[in-house]
């Protein structure tokens, strides 16, 4: 484990990128920052600018138009950056995958490190996913979740 990954995994700034989500995933993401779950325990803070981001949380479907934006925002983020897809829509497209404006899952536009399924996923699931990504950063050779 490099020093760089160790430091990186101790302090993560979280940027929430909503792609026309129905708001349920957005509410669950906000829930994980509230007093009951308190992501700041792990050194995670929400930021308002993509330039400060270390984790990008994607929610909602990314259609032909918003895919251009998500690609541009990913390019604007300073590297290294972790991308986590939150909710069924961001993972697979769910019921929207036959829509006229839907092309491919967002994972085909930008590299995604973790998927959290659910409609919407519970805050516990989001925190568990972020913890697994942190564990993976600290121990790349180990199995997921260690």
């Amino acid at each position, binding site marked *: 484990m490099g020093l760089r990954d160790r*430091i990186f995994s101790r302090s993560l700034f979280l940027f929430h990128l909503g792609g026309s989500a129905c708001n349920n995933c957005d509410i669950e993401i906000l829930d994980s920052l509230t*007093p009951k779950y308190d992501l700041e325990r792990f050194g995670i803070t929400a930021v308002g600018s993509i330039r*400060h981001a270390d984790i990008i949380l994607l929610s909602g479907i990314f259609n032909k138009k918003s895919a251009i934006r998500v690609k541009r925002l990913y390019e604007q983020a300073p590297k290294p950056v972790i991308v986590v897809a939150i909710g069924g829509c961001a993972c697979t497209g769910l019921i929207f995958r036959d829509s006229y404006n839907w092309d491919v899952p967002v994972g085909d536009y930008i590299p995604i490190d973790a998927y959290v399924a659910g409609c919407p996923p519970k805050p516990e699931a989001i925190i568990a996913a972020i913890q697994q990504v942190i564990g993976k950063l600290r121990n790349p050779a180990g199995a997921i979740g260690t």
Partner: protein
Amino acid sequence: MNLLVQFLVFPGMLFTAGAGLVTSWVDRKLTARVQMRQGPPLLQPFFDVAKLMVKETCVPEGCPGWLFLSAPIIGLAGVSMASMILCQAMWKPEATFSGDLIVVMYLLAFPSLAVILGAFASRNPLASLGGSREMKLVMAYELPFILTACVPIIWAQSIQLGNILSAPSVDRTVSGVLAFVFSAIAMQARLTRVPFDIPEAECELGGGVLIEYSGPPLAFYKLTQAMMLFTGPMYLLVLYGGGLSFSQGWMTAGLGVLKLVGVIVLIVLIRNTAPRLRIDQAMKLLWGPVTFGAILAVLLAWGGF
């Protein structure tokens, strides 16, 4: 050589950075406890800065890169210098020079100046909105800030920090208490803490002045803000609380540390209980009641109260 060590290590940059980061942890932990959260671990601010140091630096297209990248360093240098002079005055009051209070006041303006320069250099509309708000805020708080500093000057009859510290403390006079209250309000604006966090305004400007910064320059800004959170209360302590002295026994030193922590806690609690003001409300507050209160304090000091 000795001066260089004093500036870079103790009590300058390195010491103030450490103290400032611990102070910012106190700030975040207290905020978390007020909101009934658990809060970040002790070393969190250190990890934040270290993490930003290993991140990529993005320079926006078409902006003057030299200004964009040098602005954070200007702020960091200014606050280190101010902290060095303030701490030096407390440890070695005889080593101060005439007029160092004025130098400190100038140096304390550097971080705001750096933020304004960086914000305008980044060519981001939200950042320039934040920059212009910061500029108005500087104009608003400097007047009461300088007026309240006149009170200890009048009591000590000197503009030298050593003489102000050795003169009887002003915290038992009416004018001293008044000046401390109004100076603390101006200090809250200088630290751009809530209710004066108008230039950064997370939820309307998304970080405002710092929006385009990433990597090491952002780390310098975070460090500067943390150091200001330590230097600001230190300034109030030197001017209105008699400073922090280790030469007169542990009782005095302990009392000084308690006063310093008290001022920091006060700033954090105001931050957590007040809503954000609009820029026009902030200017009305700082140029209206606060300035008149500061003038009243100066007049009282002049009359010997």
